[in-house]
């Protein structure tokens, strides 16, 4: 016998099979189409572009599952097995169809290889699935849910794969091919059957069973978690695309708040829970988790904008009963730290979804937390979120003779943009005072905007008040153009991030404005340069164990980790230690995303206290920050945690000034 496979060997009523296939494919196609079309409903658009870099990244993430291996090699391996097993078998089935309908190529050696590979893929699939089920239900890994759906779908796949082996076994028992050795698993299975006839009748039954299970799986695919096979790669690709600015003319009507990308994100979520594991809010015991939020959002989309059957199928019962509680209550905990977006293997940025819904809540107006509303109103009226009168903005510089913009002389040199928090908060004012002292010592030619310094608008953007953000942005840009300011340095990573990443986005869509016509740096970058140029010298030794807290908006958002560390390490006497979570894994201090200006979200150990505990555990005596919000929140946490005797929180500027042998009162 020539090694080959006859597709419908000994099967009657093949027409039924074709019917089933058609039905299955129809349902599959309809489901896929429905879900993909639902993405198109999204409000804000994207600049669709193609980039080779993006594509290669995508391929690595999809086919090698790079992100899934992060922090959990077991997950990475089991997923890879399942993925390749599945793809291999899919390719194999396609080959069979080609072989049967087009060109009989699987014959002889090619068939033997084919058979061997199919077994390999099948075993990979089965072992991957089993491992996955064991991790979830027996090892009971925390972040993995244990619902019926999490059991049924893998089991279904498992049954399909196992039935495939049984099918092969019974066929081999019936055919008794000489090349059985190439399909050892099948051969082993074939021993289940005693005789030729028993095997044959079994074969027929198993054939139809296998067909039904497999076709059923295909049809159900768009309606189960397996849909992530399309949604997740799409999400991964889209997450790399540059965002489009939100135009004020676009009305955020109900149903339009979410961008197209956000809708894809909702569908791409496989509920793996990595986001919740790294979320500072969830970890502090607050009533928030990114996963639960995404699923609420998904449910809301399905229930409000999908059809009822869709709502049922897409997981109406997925989310724990919220009894009519508005999703608007679930969005204010997020500090926008970005840890979840970093951790998600599907590239989902929960922050973006939260931001979309925050915009909707702001436009609606009735469910905005009162303190936040007051802060935004203060920003509109007084140009700062602190409710302080505009006149007092430059008071931090008292006694320091800092050059500022005046009517007579146009400013020259570097513009130091202090920012709202640094200007008004008494503790944070030390950042500005220290920084200008350092600049003076280093002989840098700089100036400040003074009491007319506007707010960069970042907080408005983070809480979803796009209109206010654009209003502030227009003010800032107009001021920069009026005074021809082209080189900025900021205290706050938030201002820095806004100027660097958000402003060009909005400016470039308006042709009359020059996009990115100014350079902006964070002060850590400038100080590192000054150190390298020898303009800053460390005269004093600071014998202390020092750790650096990476601000989210400097580190995770803008990949700037090294400069502060290089500076700190250059200080004589300093022993640098790292906290458990540092660099890109840094734990948020809890001050971002508008949290600074909101009511306390009751929880036992606050986000900031957790971070301080880490500093303590690392044996640090000093925690150095590079952000005014981090400085304030962490210092508060030291007090509430009772660690004032052992731990000190300082801004990098203050440390540098100390090491330079100067002291700022």
């Amino acid at each position: 016998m020539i090694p080959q496979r006859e597709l419908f060997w000994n099967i009657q009523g093949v027409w039924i099979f074709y019917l089933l296939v058609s039905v299955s494919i129809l349902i599959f196609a309809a489901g896929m189409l429905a879900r993909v079309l639902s993405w198109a409903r999204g409000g804000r658009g994207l600049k669709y572009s193609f980039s080779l870099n993006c594509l290669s990244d995508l391929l690595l993430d999809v086919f090698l599952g790079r992100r899934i291996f992060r922090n959990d090699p077991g997950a990475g391996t089991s997923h890879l097995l399942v993925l390749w097993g599945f793809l291999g078998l899919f390719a194999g089935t396609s080959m069979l169809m080609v072989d049967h309908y087009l060109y009989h190529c699987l014959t002889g050696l090619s068939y033997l290889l084919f058979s061997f590979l199919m077994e390999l893929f099948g075993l990979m699939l089965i072992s991957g699935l089993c491992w996955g089920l064991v991790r979830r239900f027996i090892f009971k890994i925390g972040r993995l849910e244990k619902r019926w759906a999490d059991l049924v779908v893998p089991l279904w796949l498992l049954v399909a794969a196992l039935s495939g082996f049984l099918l092969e076994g019974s066929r081999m028992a019936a055919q008794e091919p000489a090349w059985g050795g190439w399909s050892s698993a099948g051969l082993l299975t074939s021993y289940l059957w005693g005789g030729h006839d028993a095997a044959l009748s079994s074969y027929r039954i198993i054939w139809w069973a296998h067909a039904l299970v497999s076709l059923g799986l295909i049809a159900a695919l768009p309606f189960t978690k397996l849909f992530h096979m399309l949604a997740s790669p799409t999400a991964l690709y889209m997450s790399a695309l540059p965002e489009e600015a939100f135009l004020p003319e676009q009305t955020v009507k109900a149903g339009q708040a979410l961008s197209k990308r956000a809708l894809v994100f909702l569908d791409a979520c496989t509920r793996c829970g990595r986001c919740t594991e790294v979320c500072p809010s969830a970890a502090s015991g607050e009533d928030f988790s990114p996963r639960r939020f995404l699923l609420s959002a998904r449910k809301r989309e399905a229930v409000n904008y999908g059809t009822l059957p869709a709502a049922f199928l897409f997981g109406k019962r997925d989310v724990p009963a919220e009894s009519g509680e508005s999703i608007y209550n679930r969005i204010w905990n997020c500090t926008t730290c970005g840890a979840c977006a970093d951790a998600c293997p599907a590239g989902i940025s929960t922050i973006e979804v939260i931001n979309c819904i925050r915009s909707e809540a702001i436009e609606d107006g009735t469910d905005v937390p009162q303190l936040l509303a007051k802060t935004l109103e203060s920003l509109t009226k007084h140009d700062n979120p602190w409710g302080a009168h505009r006149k007092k903005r430059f008071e931090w510089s008292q006694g320091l003779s800092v050059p500022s913009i005046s009517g007579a002389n146009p400013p020259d040199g570097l513009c130091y943009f202090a920012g709202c928090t640094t200007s008004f908060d008494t503790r944070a004012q030390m950042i500005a005072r220290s920084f200008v002292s350092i600049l003076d010592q280093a002989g840098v030619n700089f100036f400040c905007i003074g009491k007319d310094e506007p707010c960069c608008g970042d907080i408005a953007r983070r809480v979803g008040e796009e209109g206010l953000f654009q209003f502030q942005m227009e003010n800032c840009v107009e001021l920069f153009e009026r005074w021809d300011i082209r080189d900025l340095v900021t205290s706050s990573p938030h201002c820095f991030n806004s100027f660097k990443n958000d402003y060009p986005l909005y400016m470039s869509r308006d042709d009359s404005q020059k996009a990115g016509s100014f350079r902006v740096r964070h002060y850590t970058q400038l100080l590192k340069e000054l150190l390298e140029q020898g303009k800053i010298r460390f005269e004093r030794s600071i014998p202390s164990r020092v750790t650096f807290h990476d601000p989210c908006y400097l580190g995770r958002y803008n990949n700037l980790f090294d400069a502060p560390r290089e500076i700190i390490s250059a200080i004589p006497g300093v022993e640098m230690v790292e906290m458990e979570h540092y660099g890109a894994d840094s734990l948020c201090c809890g001050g971002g995303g508008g949290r600074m200006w909101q009511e306390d979200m009751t929880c036992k150990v606050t986000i900031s206290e957790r971070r301080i505990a880490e500093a303590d555990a690392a044996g640090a005596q000093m925690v150095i920050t590079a952000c005014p919000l981090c400085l304030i929140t962490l210092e508060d946490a030291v007090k509430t945690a009772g660690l004032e005797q052992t731990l000190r929180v300082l801004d990098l500027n203050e440390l540098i000034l100390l090491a330079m042998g100067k002291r700022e009162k």
Partner: protein
Amino acid sequence: MTDTIVCIKQVAEVEDADIVLNDDKTGVLKDDLVMGINEWDSYALEEAIRIKESSGGKVVALSLGDEDCQDILRRALAMGADEVVHIDKNGFEGSDAVGVARGLASVIGKRHFDLLLTGVQGSDDGWGQVGIILAEILDLPFASLVVRLENHEDHLTVYRELESNTQQIVELPLPGVVTIQTGINIPRYVSIMGIRRTRNLPIAGTGAGQLGLMNSEIGTEGSCVESRQLFIPSDEANAEMLEGTLSEVCEKALSIIREKGGTD
């Protein structure tokens, strides 16, 4: 369906500000001050919008002031008002409550409405009269200091705030006038985008001349006030101010509390 008219006023916000009087001490210098909607009126406006949302009908907002008060009228539009009218301040300067009420009434009187809302008082002058005088001019039943409002289409049940944590339940037939007290609701946040979207919506404007009001009825001539002299009260504190470092001061305070409070 309840058609509501709301009167709103723009006032200078003085909470955190330093107030400076003008030269002849008859008024306050407004240059450095931020203007905003009168606190009581923002509650009234929110209540009007809520009535529209639950019972249907229209909301019309009126404001008597200079052209800056168009800001608060835009805010009303952004919140959901159907129409807004600006009565120009020209001719009304120096009016007392009756003069202002006459101005507003000359616009309101020509319209159909079920309910007229105003705030209890203005945070600047604190007269607390305009809403009720409007009721008199229009010959309508009224209730003031309302902290809770239940709409029954042809009448309202309102809860008036009295002293000592007591309230008075009153039934008011419609059409009628209600002055709204703070705390009745939580005014919604109005986004900048929301306000920008009202940019192209019309604000009807009118003035004393068009309304046919005579100088004897409004302005300084029509006012019962002959003169006003403002003064900033002396800074003198009558309290014994405790001196020293914060620790010392706190110690003293604690000993006072212990001594006078009879606590353990």
